[in-house]
């Protein structure tokens, strides 16, 4: 327990844990914000286009994590795509610093994890009875009202499953965190690796991993419990 006391005694450790979990929450929020509309678009797309959309959605899954991370270096870098576009449009005078920022990391992670959000979401949405939407429209509800009162509540189990997977993998995304986040941002996975392989402080590294494990487990169990309740509600 000495190691745990050591962890608890230092405010730095708490800030590392907090930042890591916060990163997970931010990534989940962004993926949900753009993932849900894409899921809805997928459901409304003509049958012919659906396989193509599905291919685009699983595309990140089929490229290695390191490749995806590398892509974002090229996009966010000083001489990268975004800075090139902004400079040429005359929107900024000097290249923006996008790499090694938290914003860059969150955007990159949301691409890297997007399929994990969309696959469960789409599988739940495609089981919804399309008559429900028509019924809602026939009863005079606008499309927004139908979305928030009918479609979203019923897709909640899929959404929660997606959030769970995105959260779990973004807090442990070692490669993306160290390369896009950069050395100034210390997050739990890097902290574990540093303690274990460069400082050879295995007991403390084990302590940090246990704390990360338990924190993720707590979030996962909470989301799972919510998921069960939402399924019960959705099934009436």
């Amino acid at each position, binding site marked *: 327990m000495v190691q745990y006391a050591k962890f608890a005694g230092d405010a730095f450790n708490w800030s590392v844990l907090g930042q890591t979990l916060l990163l997970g929450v931010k990534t989940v929020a962004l993926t949900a914000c753009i993932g849900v*509309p894409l899921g809805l*678009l997928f459901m409304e797309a003509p049958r012919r286009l659906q396989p193509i959309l599905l291919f685009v*959605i699983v595309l*990140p899954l089929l490229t290695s994590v*390191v490749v995806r991370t590398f892509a974002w270096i090229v996009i966010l870098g000083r001489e990268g795509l975004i800075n090139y576009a902004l400079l040429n449009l005359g929107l900024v005078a000097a290249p923006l610093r996008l790499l090694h920022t938290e914003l860059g990391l969150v955007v990159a992670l949301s691409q890297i994890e997007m399929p994990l959000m969309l696959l469960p979401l789409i599988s739940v949405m495609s089981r919804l009875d399309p008559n429900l939407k028509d019924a809602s429209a026939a009863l005079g509800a606008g499309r*927004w009202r139908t979305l928030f009162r009918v479609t979203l509540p019923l897709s909640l189990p899929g959404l929660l499953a997606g959030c769970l997977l995105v959260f779990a993998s973004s807090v442990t995304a070692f490669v993306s965190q160290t390369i896009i986040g950069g050395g100034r941002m210390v997050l739990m996975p890097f902290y574990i690796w540093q303690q274990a392989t460069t400082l050879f402080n295995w007991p403390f590294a084990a302590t940090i991993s246990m704390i990360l494990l338990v924190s993720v487990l707590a979030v996962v169990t909470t989301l799972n419990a919510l998921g069960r309740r939402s399924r019960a509600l959705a099934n009436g």
Partner: protein
Amino acid sequence: MARRSSGGDISYRLVLGLLSGIALLILITPVIVVLITSFTDSRSLRFPPPALSLRWYRSLFDPIQSAQIHTAAWNSVVVAFCSTTVAVVLGTAAALAIAGRRTWWAQALDAVFMSPLVLPTLAFGLAALMFFSTLGLPLSVPLMIVGHVAVIVPFILRTTIASLSQLDSGLLDTSASLGAGAFYTFRRVTLPVIRPGILAGAFIAFMASLDNVSVSLFLAGPETDVLPIRMWSMLESTLDVRTAAVSGVLIFSTALLVVIMDRVVGLTRRIS
């Protein structure tokens, strides 16, 4: 009333279209950017590239210049192939035992086997390193394979359990009543039904092993370098442009594998 709802209709379409547009852009751009960058002529990762050439591919395939990358890539393929083979045997056996059972131990085992999907496998990687070094075993490729098996089994388990649920238990009874032994029934009845599930799981497991960082990070040493770790250190230290060429090769070979697997088992249908 009608006017108001059509106003809502337009704003709904606009917001939905805009947000999904952003999502699609974020999903597609990175792959295209990597492919274009891999043909750059420049020593830096400038985008768009000033001129196109094959110099980084040439440098990548040069056996002397890129010896380290070749060793790492070979190790990765060996580890992925062996660990998938072991995981297929273990995963299928576990799936047969767990599928359809509602007993507490089946549920508990299911949760244990699935845990690498949601819990930080980084903790498992560290644990494996500490465990092996307590036993006094030096880092080696077989140990790496053992480590990978633990984290890729869930993929096989999931698809195999799903395909077992489509197996009509009446078929098994029929086979038994016709005098077939348990093993014969497995080989001639169960296996043909669940084979697509096993193959799809094996494919995902193979890719997951090839791509694994969290376990390899702790078990990789000078002798057991694997591709993702090598690429990570290339990016971490110097932003080596050869990474772009490696990425290009990976994207093309994965695309090829996916097309083949889709022909064989209908992979895209199974993942979703």
